[in-house]
């Protein structure tokens, strides 16, 4: 089954080639991908996820925006009661920063070398967990995270 995935780029850095490549790859994996464009605020991104009734949210950051903006977005999603939305990230995110992002509810962080096939596998794993009723959403708790299984 196709899932609905929002790909968003918070923060101010001015190019989105990476985000677009990811959007196309997920489309080619059979999903319906909503692309939001550059420089959206956390509030705007969360509104898009809610209005579009997305299953997943992919966040891209190249400029260090992740450290503050990713957790903020996760927080806003939980506040809105959208616990079931699965959040993942990509771009340039130092290994040392990742634990904090997982703690805020993100389930996968993809580095620059990630293959598109792996992202597809992540989506498939999410789908399997959801239909098995296992936690995968941003506010669903548990300690599952993608580790390339």
């Amino acid at each position, binding site marked *: 089954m196709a899932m609905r995935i929002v790909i968003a780029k918070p923060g101010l850095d001015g190019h989105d080639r990476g985000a677009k490549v990811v959007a196309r790859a997920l489309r080619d994996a059979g999903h319906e*991908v909503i*692309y939001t464009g550059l420089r959206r605020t956390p509030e705007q991104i969360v509104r898009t996820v809610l209005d579009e009734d997305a299953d997943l949210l992919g966040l891209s950051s190249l400029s260090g925006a992740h450290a503050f903006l990713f957790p903020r977005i996760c927080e806003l999603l939980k506040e809105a009661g959208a616990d079931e939305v699965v959040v993942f990230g990509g771009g340039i995110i130092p290994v040392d920063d990742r634990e904090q992002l997982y703690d805020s509810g993100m389930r996968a962080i993809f580095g620059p070398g990630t293959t598109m096939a792996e992202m597809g596998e992540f989506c498939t794993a999410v789908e399997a967990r959801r239909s098995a009723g296992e936690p995968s959403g941003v506010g669903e708790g548990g300690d599952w995270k993608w580790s390339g299984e």
Partner: protein
Amino acid sequence: MSDLLEAARAGDRRALSKLLSAVENGVESRESLGIPHNSGGGKIIGITGAPGVGKSCLVDRLLRTFSAADMRIAVLAVDPSSPLTGGALLGDRVRMQTADDDPNVFVRSLATRNQPGGLPVRLGLMAEVLVASGFDLVLVETVGSGQSEVRIVSVADRVLLVEGPGRGDSIQAEKAGVLELADAIVVNKSDLEGAERVASDLRSALDITGNPPPVLLASARNDVGIEDLADLLLSLPSRSGASMARWRERLLTAWDAALLERGDLDEVLSGLEAGEFDADQWVAEKLEE
């Protein structure tokens, strides 16, 4: 009435969003929601035209204008699904920044999911759910190629065709079907050379049809002509003479939907593949039943 519809009516965006998904996925139907058949009240406006003419940019300008007049407006923005993978890239929001923070505005992107005619099968009901939820206007942006341009009349009360300069000197013959059905035409990108010319070509081509639709010029980029377009859309009568064509498209859409929702569709397809009967034969038999 369903709880979701009631909550959506009361202004709960999340309920509305869930309700639209339920309709899109066939979990809720017209009957289960108690929504009457569209009475053609003029609240659902189709916006069609070739990719790149500026439909999404125009919609964004219109949203701002209507919202400033305290209207609540919803948008259904349709993009094509890949026939191979079923995936889709829904990118209209990139051009509709109003969608992201204006409280009077609600935008939902949707994929065609490979329906014949290029329109999602439940698009019409989704638009009607938005009307039933209290939106003053629902704008439906189509893929803008092939049959979807004509099929939109089966969903929309009024159809706005968007044209632009630099797309070939004369009006394309394939456009004829849409030209006959459009209730109004706007030539966008009036900031570029050639727009005036396209508008006057259109006017003279339409003159011979007896009851020509209005042809406007606008520039989404420079925010020119948008107020006039907004006013026109609010008061636009349905074009007389287009009525039979409209009903024809509605019938075809209903027909396709009925066929695709048959419980035995897979069996029929396997039967065709195995050569047990052919398509004409099968249809003729069903029509006799």
